[in-house]
């Protein structure tokens, strides 16, 4: 296994304080390895974005990080906990080490500044020693990399199409050549053609620059195709984690299974679409035990009382996958570290 760059350990995020707090992310442990694409899937409200923002400490109030640590391993030097950084250190850490691409590029770009200004802003903040012309050159180069010609540098966001804006955001995310890029549904607003173009470009760039991607989406079929590993979230927890192929071929958690069965396939046999009955849980009134149990076709007594632990399933001999389920054969034998 490759070396980790970002280790999320026992991560907890609450919205609000005290008794009213909504526990949006609970006890998430996840590792992003160097150079890999880690997909994070799950339906709306399962806490994917919350986790992404939490890792970078960008959650808006009333979000608080109520526990856990995020260990970052720089390419050279000692690992440190992002949660322990001071504001100033955090500012330095951001974008230079970990950048983030949000869902809606229109909203991510400040409508009143030129894209060049917004790009150069980052360089200015992190590499003040660079001369202005060098900054411009760097920004230009990056934009070229994502397929935007230099003459669009001085455009305002609204003058670009959705796909171009999204590419600008990706270019901006890479401008400081960070180790980790977090992408929160970066392509959901685009049509499939554009989506494929951008993802293809991203794959190419990753090969060139060697960063790792945490890719968030609820489109599982996209993830299967695009990412190396996939983690499935449900109700604020990771319920399953495996290599894409493994997950696609043989998902262990009933929820992952349901998800995979919800997508109509375009090619091949017309599969039967089962879907998942019921509706997503309310974070305020989480079901006891496994939060999926009310919707789970295979639920049994234990599911409603005990929260399953994420771990390597006991029954079959899997090495690098884990699941949180009480079903026979999936009960973990070991906690994923």
């Amino acid at each position, binding site marked *: 296994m490759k070396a980790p760059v970002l280790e999320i350990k026992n991560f907890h995020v609450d919205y609000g304080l005290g008794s009213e707090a909504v526990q949006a992310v609970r006890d998430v442990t996840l590792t992003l390895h160097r150079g890999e694409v880690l997909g994070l899937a799950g339906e709306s409200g399962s806490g994917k974005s919350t986790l992404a923002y939490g890792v970078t400490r960008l959650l808006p109030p009333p979000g608080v990080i109520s526990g856990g640590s995020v260990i970052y391993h720089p390419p050279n030097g000692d690992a440190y906990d992002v949660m322990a950084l001071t504001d100033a250190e955090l500012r330095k850490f951001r974008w230079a080490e970990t950048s983030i691409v949000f869902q809606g590029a229109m909203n991510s770009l400040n409508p009143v500044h*030129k894209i060049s200004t917004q790009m150069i802003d980052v360089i200015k903040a992190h590499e003040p020693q660079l001369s202005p012309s060098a900054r411009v050159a760097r920004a230009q180069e990056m934009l070229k990399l994502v397929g935007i010609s230099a003459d669009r540098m001085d455009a305002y966001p609204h003058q670009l199409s959705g796909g171009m804006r999204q590419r600008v955001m990706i270019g901006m995310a890479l401008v400081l050549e960070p180790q980790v890029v977090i992408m929160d549904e970066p392509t959901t607003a685009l049509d499939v053609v554009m989506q494929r173009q951008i993802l293809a470009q991203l794959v190419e760039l990753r090969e060139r620059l060697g960063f790792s991607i945490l890719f968030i989406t609820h489109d599982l079929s996209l993830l299967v195709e695009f990412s190396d590993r996939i983690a499935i979230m449900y109700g604020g927890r990771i319920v399953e984690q495996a290599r894409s192929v493994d997950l696609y071929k043989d998902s262990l958690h009933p929820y992952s299974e349901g998800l995979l069965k919800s997508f109509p396939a375009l090619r091949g046999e017309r599969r039967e679409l089962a879907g998942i009955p019921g509706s997503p849980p309310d974070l305020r009134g989480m079901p006891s035990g496994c939060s999926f149990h009310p919707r789970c076709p295979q639920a049994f007594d234990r599911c409603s009382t005990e929260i399953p632990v994420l771990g390597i399933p006991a029954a079959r001999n899997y090495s690098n996958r884990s699941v949180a389920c009480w079903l026979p054969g999936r009960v973990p034998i070991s906690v994923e570290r």
Partner: protein
Amino acid sequence: MKFLLQRLAFYVFTAWAALTINFFIPRLIPGDPVTSLINKFQGQMSTEAINSLYVLFGLDKNASLWSQYVDYWGQVFHGDLGLSFTFFPTPVADILKQSLPWTIALVGITTFASFMIGTSLGVVAGWRRGSIMDGLLPVTTFLSSIPYFWLGLLAITLLAGPDSFFPSSGGYEPGLVPGWTGSFIGSAIQHSLLPALTILISSVSGWILTMRNMMVTVASEDYITVAHAKGLSERRVMVSYAARNALLPNVSGFALSLGFIVGGTLLVEIVFSYPGIGYNLFQAVGAKDYPLMQGVFLVITLSVLVANLLADVAYLLLDPRTRKEG
């Protein structure tokens, strides 16, 4: 460029409508300038003198409202606003020329200052929610709920006086001749401090509040989070990302408030005996001085329109989205 034509039509129409209203409203008032003068000279004007005034003002001749209206437009286009009755036979234009600078200087500058201060405080209040600034809001609300004239009078009583630094009335020391002399400007500034202060107190909270609310709204926009994520300095995010965007909706509010200047200035000028245009209007209304009233309204209307135009332009400059091509 997008709405230039539309705007132009709007300005022309509004100017026409407002000026027409300006023409008709004074004429709806019963009574005439002479009866008002009688009031002014309560008991000291003989019946004969009154008749001579009708002749003097040319009110003994009856012109139809329509022909007056046509004349009025003729005058407006020639920049000739007629002769004031109150200050007969001084041309209205002269009176306005004399009072306008005062209003612009005092109320214009304070409105601007109030906007700037209020907006800055609002930026801070909205950015650091829950800090002391936020707690000050109810206090400023209370201050702004005080009727302006009451605050002004109270300020005069408490702060102004013969032994005080603050003069209680006037635009400058009575003995001075207006001009670009140090003593005159000093005196003018000294006389404007108290009125300016009271205007500030009662108007600043509105700006604080709108700006704060805009900041709060903008602060939850994605691009702010992105700006934080980019590791920009706090200041840069606050000023160049949040405040810059939050300011936009306030620009047109500011332009509109320029329109309310004269409405508000009326009370300021009454209370502080300030020689501005609002006081002219007050006098004109009291004296049924139609030409003066029309003149003041003309100035107000035009300045509001100009302010709006400026706001449009400012908006155009500040918000690239309105510059959209194609």
